[in-house]
């Protein structure tokens, strides 16, 4: 409150003399430094409290959820016969993950190898599906004739349960591994085709008008307009597809055998090591989660808005 009248005085006097003007400069500088000194401290203190609060708010609900899951699990395990609880499962997991990469013959390998071979199948089947599905989706979205031509085929084949394709794969490829990859391929391809096609058809008319007015050729339309504009949709399709692929691999491997997380679950069921089955469930869940997060990170990287 005091500063204001002093200021005015100085301002008035500064018109007559240069010396007070200097004084005024000093004054205001002091003021500025004062305020800048106070503000950051207050601000940083404020944001720190806010930050930790925000972290707590983000963390508490999922932690409660997980604890609840463990509680329910222990309760059921205490009642049901043969179902191991969280503690015995954790102990088994420690043993299991202490040596994840051992090989005792073709049907007895460490958990690490099982995960790796499952991921390999998924990568191959999914990769092939992406290579076919995304370009196909682009063409279906771009050309109405192709869209109408393929619409009945897609609606007919898409709802088919993935495992129904396994016998066909076994028949054609005469081996278990390519058949499993085939099942991944055929179940992962639909979300990519459909999402890409929808993305292409959702390209804003404004952009297409720009393309028309500029008389862009099909290649420029594809690279400068269709692909960038469709990318978010494609990535959604990719995300859905990889989810499906990872879902299907467990079931497919149960039937085809060999090395893989799905076959491992079946093997442990035959050995009646229930702890390992539960561990497998967690492993499948966590790997699926990581795949999803990885793709979300990629999608964020490519969003332009």
């Amino acid at each position, binding site marked *: 409150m005091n500063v204001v009248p002093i200021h005015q005085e100085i301002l008035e006097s500064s018109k007559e003399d240069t010396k007070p003007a200097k004084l005024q400069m000093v004054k205001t500088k002091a003021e500025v430094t004062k305020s800048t000194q106070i503000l950051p401290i207050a601000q940083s203190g404020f944001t720190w409290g806010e930050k930790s609060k925000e972290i707590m708010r983000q963390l508490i609900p999922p932690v409660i959820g997980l604890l609840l899951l463990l509680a329910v699990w222990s309760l059921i395990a205490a009642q049901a016969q043969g179902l191991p609880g969280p503690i015995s499962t954790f102990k088994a997991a420690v043993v299991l993950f202490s040596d994840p990469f051992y090989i005792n013959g073709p049907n007895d390998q460490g958990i690490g190898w099982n995960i790796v071979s499952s991921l390999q199948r998924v990568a191959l089947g999914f990769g092939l599906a992406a290579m076919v599905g995304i370009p196909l989706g682009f063409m279906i979205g771009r050309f109405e004739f192709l869209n109408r031509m393929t619409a009945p085929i897609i609606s007919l084949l898409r709802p088919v349960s993935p495992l129904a394709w396994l016998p066909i794969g076994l028949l054609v490829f005469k081996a278990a591994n390519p058949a499993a990859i085939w099942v991944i391929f055929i179940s992962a391809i639909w979300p990519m085709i459909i999402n890409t096609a929808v993305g292409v058809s959702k390209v804003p008319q*404004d*952009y297409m*008008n*720009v393309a*028309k*007015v*500029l*008389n*862009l050729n099909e290649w*420029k339309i594809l690279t*400068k*307009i269709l692909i*960038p*504009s469709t990318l978010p949709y494609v990535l959604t399709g990719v995300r859905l597809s990889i989810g499906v692929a990872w879902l299907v691999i467990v079931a497919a491997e149960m039937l085809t055998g060999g090395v893989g997380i799905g076959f491992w679950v079946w093997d442990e069921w035959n050995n009646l090591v229930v702890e390992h089955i539960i561990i497998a469930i967690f492993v499948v869940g966590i790997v699926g989660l990581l795949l999803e997060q990885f793709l979300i990170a990629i999608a964020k990287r490519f969003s*332009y*808005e």
Partner: protein
Amino acid sequence: MEQNKEKTMTASTKEKVAAKPLGKPLDRYVFIENVDMEFRSKKGVFKALENINLNIQQGEFVSIIGHSGCGKSTVLNLIAGLTQPTKGNLFCAGREIARPGPDRAVVFQNHSLLPWLTCFENVYLAVERVFGSETKVNLDVRTHAALDLVGLSHAAEKRPNEISGGMKQRVGIARALAMEPKVLLLDEPFGALDALTRANLQDELAKIIEKSGCTAVMVTHDVDEAVLLSDRIVMMTNGPSATIGEILTVDIPKPRNRLQLAEDKHYNHLRSEVLRFLYERHAKKAA
């Protein structure tokens, strides 16, 4: 001015007008003849435009004004070649308009810049298409010149979502002008902007058009904008079956000064003419 117009003429148009005295602006540069436009929808056939006839001279600035839904944007799309008329013919520089082409550049209402490209790349896309046979350096120079023309050299490397609405629209104008079009088509170019930005851009546009001497057709619903910028104002009746009601000639010499005109009797008379057409003779009932 006249020399500029000469430069914008292509060889083919020069041949066609060889009999005419040089230096005189071409008549029927954009020519719309007995055009009807119908749209088919689920409800049936909707006749948007009926019997549109318009003769635009080379170098002329024509505004099309009317209430929303009167089909003024449809007229522009027809000239752009984005849609084809149900009946009648359209010509540009003596050639029938069959499809969109870079000789008729469009400035879209919502700027329509590609959000994944920088301002430079957005303009470059157009430059490359029209002057693709030139060297890369030349194309760069053209692109920078176009951005410079609208005063946006500093924002060349920015993406559309990093600049303001007015700047986006200026990039849109730069993209259109960089193509050195015969005709510049503007579809409510400043409709989405605030009044102050709009006024600034109108003045800039007037200067740029003056400099380039290109023919311009602008769709607008802003009476002041129409009177300020146009040589003629085409006033359209309400749809369906909209047509040209009246054409008003704005005989105020250019360049025009916004502030001086505000006091000008003749300007205000013309302005009230348009207002009277829109709100007395062809008032639109509130929806």
